[in-house]
């Protein structure tokens, strides 16, 4: 059973009775442990696809099965639980809580989880260590550089030990050096820790860190190919 199975999925935004179709029927599946990049120009529907897969948004027709169960059968609280337990998110604009420490930011998802409070500290410290920010644990996140902020976001995505990590243009706001380091970190998480990673990007350069690239254009799948020669960057941050 694939982890994610998308079939003839369509999504149409309705705003003031104006219908804007975004996805016109896409089908693919993703197995556990894959590292997939979804590519496409802006407006192609790739972000919408990620939001649907991430239980952040609904879909209009077709089917989306996560771990074999149809997503539309979950109610609001159940989707919140799935997002908390099984999914991790990394956003282009980091989306950290301002004026809070690295520790508090990474800890945040645990507050909404059923992980016993006695484990919170260890989990948080471990996640911060994985992204190599132990020396910044008590820093206010507003004092960090862009690359460091994104690493905090990665640690936050990891702290509940999710099945899938969704990364939406994670290097979009970073210079190429820290962007490379972030990509290498994701690669290591996939290879060494076995996390399934779904990456959204519009840069071929970034996408080639993945094992598989799904190209989307105008709401339809254009191509779905294995990456022949994966790109690796120096400066991965994994410490273990």
């Amino acid at each position: 059973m694939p982890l994610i199975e998308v079939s003839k999925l369509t999504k149409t935004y309705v705003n003031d009775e104006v219908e804007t179709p975004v996805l016109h029927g896409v089908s693919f599946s993703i197995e556990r442990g894959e590292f997939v990049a979804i590519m496409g120009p802006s407006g192609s529907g790739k972000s919408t696809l990620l939001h649907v897969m991430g239980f952040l948004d609904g879909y209009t027709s077709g089917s989306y099965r996560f771990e074999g169960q149809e997503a539309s059968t979950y109610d609001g609280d159940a989707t919140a639980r799935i997002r908390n337990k099984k999914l991790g998110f990394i956003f282009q604009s980091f989306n950290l809580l301002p004026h809070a420490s690295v520790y508090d930011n990474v800890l945040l998802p645990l507050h909404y989880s059923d992980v016993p409070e006695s484990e919170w500290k260890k989990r948080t410290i471990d996640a911060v260590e994985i992204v190599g920010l132990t020396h910044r644990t008590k820093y206010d996140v507003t004092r960090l550089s862009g690359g460091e902020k994104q690493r905090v976001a990665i640690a936050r995505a990891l702290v509940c030990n999710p099945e899938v990590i969704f990364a939406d243009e994670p290097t979009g706001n970073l210079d190429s050096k820290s962007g490379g380091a972030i990509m290498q970190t994701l690669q290591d998480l996939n290879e060494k820790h076995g996390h399934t990673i779904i990456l959204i990007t519009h840069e071929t350069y970034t996408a080639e860190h993945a094992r598989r690239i799904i190209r989307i254009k105008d709401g339809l799948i254009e191509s779905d190919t294995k990456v022949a020669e994966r790109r690796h960057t120096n400066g991965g941050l994994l410490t273990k």
Partner: protein
Amino acid sequence: MRFKHSIKTAYRGLEQNRARSFLTILGIVIGVTAIILVMSLGQGAQALILDQVKGMGTRTIIVGGGREPKGPSDAGQIFNDSLKKRDLDLLLRRENTPSVKYVMPIVFGASGASYQSDTFNLTIFGASPLMEKIFDMPLKSGTFFTEEDIRGRAKYVVIGNKVKTELFGADEAVGSVIKMKNHNFRVIGVFAERGQDFFNFDEAAIIPYTTAQDYVLGIKHFNRFITEAASEAQINDAADEIKLTLRESHNITDPDKDDFFVITQVDLAGRLSSITSVLTIFLAAVAAISLIVGGIGIMNIMLVSVTERTKEIGLRKALGATYKNILTQFLLEAVILTGLGGIIGILLGAFFSWAIATGITKFTSIAWTFSFPVSAAILGLGVSGAIGLIFGLYPARTAARKSPIDALRYE
């Protein structure tokens, strides 16, 4: 989501906008301060009045001429002349009023009193020697006048402590002559200081009632009869006997047409305390309006805060926060805001009423006691918390209903 964390999160949300949070709760602070102040002063006033009424003696029954004054429109009743000498004689007859121990007629009026170059405005009471017994008024020096002086219309006066100080200073007053309404009165006694009481005897001069009627006030009637029941158990009997005697004397068959009124000390205490209660409640209600206005302010600011933090709400939802989590967070913020306002208001209200009580005791002779209105404090805290809940609900629901993706995209 743990409650402890919710509180911490809410607190952090408020801390980020400290000045705004403070301004927001100002309405609640003022409202609660006002309520505590009004309630505390109301309690103090009530305690003071009850204390003074109790100082009259529990067995005291007051009889007045005319209808009982129940409001400003009855003010004229104070000049009613229905109580006559005949009534006094009938009341003094043992067979008419077996339950009544003492009957003392009283007349009163305002007058200036002068000694040498000093003048003082006081109240003249025309009374009888029973005064000492009914009101328990020990003399500091001198003696009280006698029944003999009543019959002889003696121009003797017993003065209150303040009158003595104002006119004579440290000098001996007994034996001196003071002038009131163009008549010379010999001071034969000075009362010990009583402090603020119901009749304000410290600023009064007591003369024989006959003298007062004939020489000073020029009236034939009495303003009041101050009577005392033989025992506390006989107060109601005594009051009934007085009413029957007076109705017979005035040829009244319908009790609704009484041209006099009878009030026991218990009645008086009850009436006065119900007046202060009503006043207190009315003022507190006015103060409560500012709480509602404060609540609307809270709602307004919470809505702004929800909009401002749309992105944060989206993030929390993406990380697994449920509808309930977000609702709780924003409700708690509102309740913490108003609760904080309530606590500050209670402290301020208590402080101001304490300051006022201290000021009154220090600068006047009124024995005002500060009392912290515990029930009002609990009520104030409860009401401000409830206002947070009620006015926080709409903004909190707005926050909790946001779709995570719309919220995340919000710029």
